[in-house]
């Protein structure tokens, strides 16, 4: 089956309610299980995750069309460049990285001005630079991500799980 790397948002957990978060890819658990697909993910900045999944093209298209996901590479090795992405795809990825909370200055300094000129590994490592510890806030009855900076599970660790 095709293998994709994607970015997805964390959404409210379907059993823990407001106290819990889950990567939105879990919403496709039934479809993934039906195909015998495998998925692995790592939380990154801004309540996003990077994920690697093997699934049919049809299911990957369905996931990519979902507002909480963006497929960033299909059948690519970590050291493959992203040169085949369209400008629209590159803009979409850049906007997601900005939405995570990375600054324009950070993006430009590390990734340059053209995502198509970097490798998949560079993009994923950039996303996985940092995240912040969540906490449950009784007052607002919500999860707030304002704790100490935490390390992220790196893409190389995900890469070996789904092959």
């Amino acid at each position, binding site marked *: 089956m095709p293998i994709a790397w994607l970015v997805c948002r964390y959404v409210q957990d379907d059993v823990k309610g407001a106290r819990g*978060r889950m*990567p939105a890819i879990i919403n496709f*658990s039934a479809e993934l*299980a039906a195909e015998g697909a495998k998925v692995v993910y790592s939380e990154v900045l801004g309540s996003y995750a990077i994920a690697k999944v093997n699934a049919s093209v049809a299911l990957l298209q369905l996931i990519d069309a979902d507002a909480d996901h963006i497929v960033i590479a299909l059948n690519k090795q970590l050291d493959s460049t992203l040169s085949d992405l369209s400008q629209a795809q590159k803009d979409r990825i850049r906007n997601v990285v900005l939405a995570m909370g990375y600054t324009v200055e950070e993006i430009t300094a590390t990734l340059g001005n053209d995502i198509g000129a970097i490798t998949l590994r560079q993009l994923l490592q950039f996303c996985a630079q940092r995240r912040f510890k*969540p*906490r449950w806030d009784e007052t607002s009855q919500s999860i707030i991500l304002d704790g100490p900076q*935490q390390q992220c*599970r790196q893409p190389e660790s995900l890469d070996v799980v789904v092959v």
Partner: protein
Amino acid sequence: MAFGDSSVLLSSFTGSDENPLSEGGDWTSDSNDLQRLSNAITGGSANPCHSWWVPDYWPASTYISVYATWTTVGGHAEENEQRFATLATQGGAADGYEAFYSFRNGGNNDRARIYRLDAGAFTLLNSDDTLTFTDGDKYGFEMNPTTGAMAIYADTGGGWSSIVSTTDTTYDEDWFLDLFIQNTSSVWDDVYQTGAVAIQTTPVVAVMPPPRGY
């Protein structure tokens, strides 16, 4: 080391009925306690209940595992947990990891999930939502805090096998064991544990309600 090897019995819960569960002070809680009933444990009331193991803790970087026999899976929509939380958050908003078991009704599949807890907030690390829990099965949770590897294991009669696994290295601290049974219809028995423990000498003082896993 395979899951279940070198495990020692933490408690068989043998004795007269006791609510709240104490066993001579070995178990305590800060909200709704578990109870010992008919030589097994269940919720002490029709609420989310939990009790933690007092005498020992597991030092940082220690391999840890725990498992129990599910004498009775329970009524529908049960949600039970085996949690390793950091000793520093005992009695407070927990940091740590938990194996979460959700028994569902209406023909839906049961679920086993691994969550990370951060100051009382739950983050799903991995899950298998295609399971069927059966009375008499055994379920357990293991952690290797050094590598961050953790897994839920099931023994449904054919030996132990991993059903959910993940890796997370956020926490590597001293740990305590906290068992959650949602209400009085789930029954667990014979809790085993693995991992070198240290004697807990500091009195446990509950300072605020823990996060409820429901």
